[in-house]
């Protein structure tokens, strides 16, 4: 749908206002991380520091073991991205391309799990992991991602696999390829765009995950970045009593947690948006 020139020019001022509203909090977060104490507590508040100071970015590493938080987060994210992408692709391929009894019913159950509140499974799953002595390790955050990688991802990939022409496997079978070859060497490469969407989605979900770490991790050496940030929050239960942290340091830590997801999102946004378009287009 193309717009007439007039409405287009009316849209720009609104778009600009919107952009300021949505960006402002993030800009202020970064700006505040560069403020000295005088600037932080100015009344009325200021947007940009009068003097830019980067000392918060030097200090936070010694205030809390941020390096260890980041290392833990990277481990969880890397494993989860592999786990979610590979296992959801396997399942999606099965549902899309292979015929077996009860297929429709099982797929229906998979979709229904999306509607189950996590409150219901939270306690028994916690009990399970604590019996395995997995609390305060990264295992509870990693292992479940290898079991299907989430109903939404299976749903999304299934649509892609189902869209591949049937002649492809026929031709491959004639050439002597077995099922695994067809899946791994033919179907997977063809679904790269969708797989990228799943991988990026699980990167962002895992990087941002707060509830999982909050449930399973109580020792600081196993903290992820999200939980480490939470523990920094003044007066938060679960956090040590940290009164010495300044707002600039807090905002610097937040900026560090935000920048990787924002960067990934910027590079991937085209793919993500078209991925959503595909998945919602199906329902109509």
């Amino acid at each position, binding site marked *: 749908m193309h*717009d007439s020139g007039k409405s287009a020019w009316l849209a720009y001022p609104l778009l600009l206002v*919107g952009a300021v509203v*949505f960006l402002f*909090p993030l800009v202020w977060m970064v700006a505040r991380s560069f403020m000295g104490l005088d600037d932080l507590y100015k009344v009325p508040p200021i947007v940009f520091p009068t003097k830019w100071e980067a000392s918060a970015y030097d200090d936070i590493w010694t205030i809390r073991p941020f390096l260890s938080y980041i290392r833990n987060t990277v481990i969880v994210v890397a494993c989860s991205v592999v786990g979610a992408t590979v296992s959801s692709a396997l399942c999606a391929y099965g549902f899309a391309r292979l015929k077996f009894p009860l297929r429709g019913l099982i797929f229906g159950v998979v979709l229904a799990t999306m*509607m189950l509140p996590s409150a219901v*499974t939270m306690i028994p799953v916690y009990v399970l992991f604590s019996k395995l002595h997995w609390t305060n390790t990264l295992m509870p955050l990693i292992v479940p991602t290898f079991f299907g990688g989430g109903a939404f991802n299976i749903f999304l990939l299934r649509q892609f696999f189902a869209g591949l022409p049937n002649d492809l496997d026929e031709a491959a079978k004639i050439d002597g390829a077995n099922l695994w070859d067809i899946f791994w060497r033919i179907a997977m490469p063809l679904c790269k765009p969708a797989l990228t969407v799943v991988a990026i989605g699980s990167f962002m979900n895992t990087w*941002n995950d707060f509830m999982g770490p909050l449930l399973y991790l109580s020792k600081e050496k196993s903290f992820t970045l*999200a939980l480490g940030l939470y523990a920094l929050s003044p007066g938060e239960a679960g956090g040590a009593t940290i009164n010495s942290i300044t707002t600039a340091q807090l905002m610097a830590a937040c900026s560090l947690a*935000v920048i990787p997801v924002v960067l990934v999102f910027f590079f991937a946004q085209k793919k993500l948006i078209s991925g959503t378009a595909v998945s919602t287009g199906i329902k109509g």
Partner: protein
Amino acid sequence: MKSRKAVREAIAGYLFTSPVTLGILLFTAWPVAQSLYYSFTKFNIIKKPQWVGGDNYAKLTGDAEFWHSLKITAIFTGVSVPASLLVGFLMALLLNRSLRGIGLFRTIFYLPVVVPVVASGMLWKQLYSPTYGFANRLLEAVGLPPYTWFSQPESVLPSIIIMGLWQAGGSMIIWLAGFQGIPVHLYEAAIVDGASRMRRFWSITIPMITPVIFFNLIMGFIGSFQVFGQVMATTAGGPLNASNFLMVMIYKEAFRTLNMGYASALAWVLFVIVLLLTAFIFRTSRSWVHYEGGAK
């Protein structure tokens, strides 16, 4: 008798889908059953669960804290779901055009959604700070008196809802996808027939987008009944339990006071409410959701 080929394909099918079937058995089906059992017990994880019959559910009906929590969760859901649908819709309307730079605007409008909840929570605590924040400056600029935001029980709900609207990009993106899924030929035909811009909007866009409204409503209700992260990262249920939403209450019962039996009962009540709400929306959907090309 099935051919050997079909049998082999079926075996392969089960193997390919085995991660998710195992996953559902381990992390969904069994826990759901366990949780139902726990809800009839006294359980603190250290000792074995002790059967108490319906005591937890009986306690729940007389628990003022639970009713308060249910009430604020319902209010939060009732306000924030329609509000963020509406804001997302307006954003999508604005962004659904082919203008120079529109891709960048879409990215910016969506950006808040990818911000980790703990970081956005801390950020909003700063924005809402009565003296050092910008929220009250904004009110002052338009001539309104300062507001108490997170610091008073009566202002905490609106504050959390407004904070949530910052992330309305999540629903915007689904609206956008919906708009773009509407076949162009429908509009072209309407233009040929002389339909006005408004008429095209009400007679084509709205009916064609009802499946998207439906999807957004269902996911929105399910999500906001379980509001948790943004509350823990800001008010942690306070002040004076004013933002002690159901999920926050369940978490505290289970993991702070170790009343896991009672927490399970609360979780089941939450589950039943979500189930009923979803069923209700599904039922009504037949009369207002329009599926192009017949039934879903």
